[in-house]
């Protein structure tokens, strides 16, 4: 009885194996075979777009949704909170505590994650298909859109990119001439870390026509000395609400024009999320910054 059961199982799985490719071929006729090379140089082949997707990075989640595949997501990481629909999905932990078991039980066709994630090898060894992608700049965002668009076999993935460009362009247009060329310090955290011009935030600032107090060779997010900021004398400071505590009491900072004239934009948690993610909402990020620049320039006009 038992051996027969086992052999029938084997036969069934063999049958499934034989049927599998046939099924895939049928699909392949309707859509071309795609090869995706990810950011770690790992190549995967796709005869049909994945139907069950797990994303482990907020910007990747937003990219998948922007490409119209939100309903194919079956799980996301803890920090993904946009669009609203993903909050109903299983949350699979963060970078250091990814819930491998839950991911496996969700039977995803593909797991999209950042190269810095530690679970890539573990997930591969469990037989899952993993694609690692990371965006650090505008060019990266465009590239990631292309890759995920190809993976999902979306016809015009670059439409999302054109929308970003249009929004950033409109934001730049909306800036009053007196706010252009303003010297800006963007504080990422209170150590203090700054957003440099080579970071995607810095690229947005450059596109809006404001000057960054950080120079390109200092890297994307340099930890700087507070007296550097005093010396650079920014006219405007952008900072998250979490880090703004005690900003006006910092020793020696009362010299900085932005502090003296209270030209400080404090972003709430939701705005900070948008600003800190290199993904499809970079256009919205540019608009948040533009709004800050408009408000600050009009308030300083009133003061005069």
């Amino acid at each position: 009885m038992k051996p027969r059961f086992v052999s029938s199982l084997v036969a069934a799985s063999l049958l499934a194996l034989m049927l599998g490719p046939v099924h895939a071929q049928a699909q392949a006729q309707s859509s071309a075979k795609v090869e995706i090379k990810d950011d770690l140089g790992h190549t995967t082949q796709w005869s049909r777009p994945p139907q069950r997707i797990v994303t482990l990075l907020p910007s990747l989640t937003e990219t998948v949704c922007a490409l119209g595949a939100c309903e194919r997501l079956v799980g996301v990481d803890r920090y993904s909170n946009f669009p609203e629909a993903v909050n109903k999905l299983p949350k699979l932990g963060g970078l250091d505590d990814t819930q491998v078991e839950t991911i496996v039980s969700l039977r995803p066709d593909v797991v999209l994650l950042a190269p810095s994630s530690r679970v890539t090898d573990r997930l591969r060894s469990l037989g899952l298909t993993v694609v690692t992608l990371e965006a650090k700049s505008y060019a990266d965002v465009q590239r990631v859109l292309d890759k995920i668009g190809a993976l999902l076999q979306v016809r015009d993935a670059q439409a999302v990119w054109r929308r970003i460009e249009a929004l950033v362009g409109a934001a730049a247009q909306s800036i009053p001439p007196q706010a252009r060329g303003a010297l800006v310090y963007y504080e990422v955290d209170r150590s203090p870390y700054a957003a440099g011009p080579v970071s995607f935030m810095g690229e947005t600032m450059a596109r809006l026509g404001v000057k960054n107090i950080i120079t390109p060779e200092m890297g994307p997010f340099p930890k700087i000395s507070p007296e550097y900021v005093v010396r650079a004398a920014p006219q405007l400071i952008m900072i998250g609400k979490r880090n703004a505590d005690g900003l006006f009491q910092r020793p020696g900072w009362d010299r900085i024009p932005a502090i003296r004239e209270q030209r400080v934009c404090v972003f709430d948690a939701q705005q900070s999320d948008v600003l800190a993610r290199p993904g499809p909402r970079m256009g919205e990020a540019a608009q948040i910054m533009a709004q800050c620049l408009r408000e600050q320039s009009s308030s300083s006009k009133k003061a005069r």
Partner: protein
Amino acid sequence: MSRAAAPHAPSWSAWRLLAGLLLASGLALALGVAVGSTGFALDWSGTDPMQAQILWQIRLPRSAGAWLAGALLGLAGAITQGLFRNPLADPYLLGSAAGARLGVALSLAVLGGTPMGMQWLERLGLTGAAFLGTLAGVSLALTMAKGVEHTLRLLLAGVVVGVVLGAVTDLITLAQPDILRTMQAFVLGTTSFLGWPSIVLMGGVLLLSLAVALGASEALDALTLGEATAESLGVRLGLVRALLIIAFALATGTAVAQTGMIAFVGLVAPHLVRNLCHGSHRQLLLLSACAGGLLLLAADILSRWLMAPQELPVGVITAILGGGYLLRLMHKRKYGGRA
């Protein structure tokens, strides 16, 4: 270990070491005023108002503040190591570090969560929250241990309180992931924003806790012979412990609130001192404070000098500097162990 031990090891006289440490601290302070975001540049002329402001409002208070914070941590480390007769004890013991982290996490979560915020919490700021958190953590450990009667129970209670409060903090950061970066900045510690008010505060607390600790130093000497012997020598253990723990909590809480959790200074400063000189606890406490101050000040100077105008996290340098020097000392001589 008292001065009778290890007679073969060449050791400095305590007062000469103290003079040396103070001299080195003075030199480091002068260097600290000279080193800034443009690298090494000393301009005392004071004609440029910006230069003057940077010197008087940023570099000098920052350098002096780094020394004071290091001294507080060094003193707190020497107190705990003496009190628990354990060379691995450090200022972040007894639930102090976990309490401070929880205080910061709570205040961040509440501040961001409600649009109006809580007025008193906003006024308290992260500094106040960290200080209160430290005191709360230590008090909780004391309550769990039912007072200060049993050293081992107290130590264990501190560890358990640390783990539990740490878990609560983790839960808060899980619920509010966007506070993660700010939390991380606090845990790594920074000397960047020390101003004159911080100096006055830390200086006052340093004098106070140093006075208490020095007053109890003879009891600590007696304690090295064991609790029973100390009691038979007439030491009122309960009172001494309570006083020392208050001094310890004040010193740690103040340092942590002003600079975040800078690693390793409190652990390594007493060891450095013990390696260089064998003295009584009175000398050890004083010297540990000076060594801690010098260590953190040196680390602060290096942190802003090496990559100027960028900075390295100061905790990284204290670990490399203090740890490296201690390893070298241990390698050079047979390491005697504890005091």
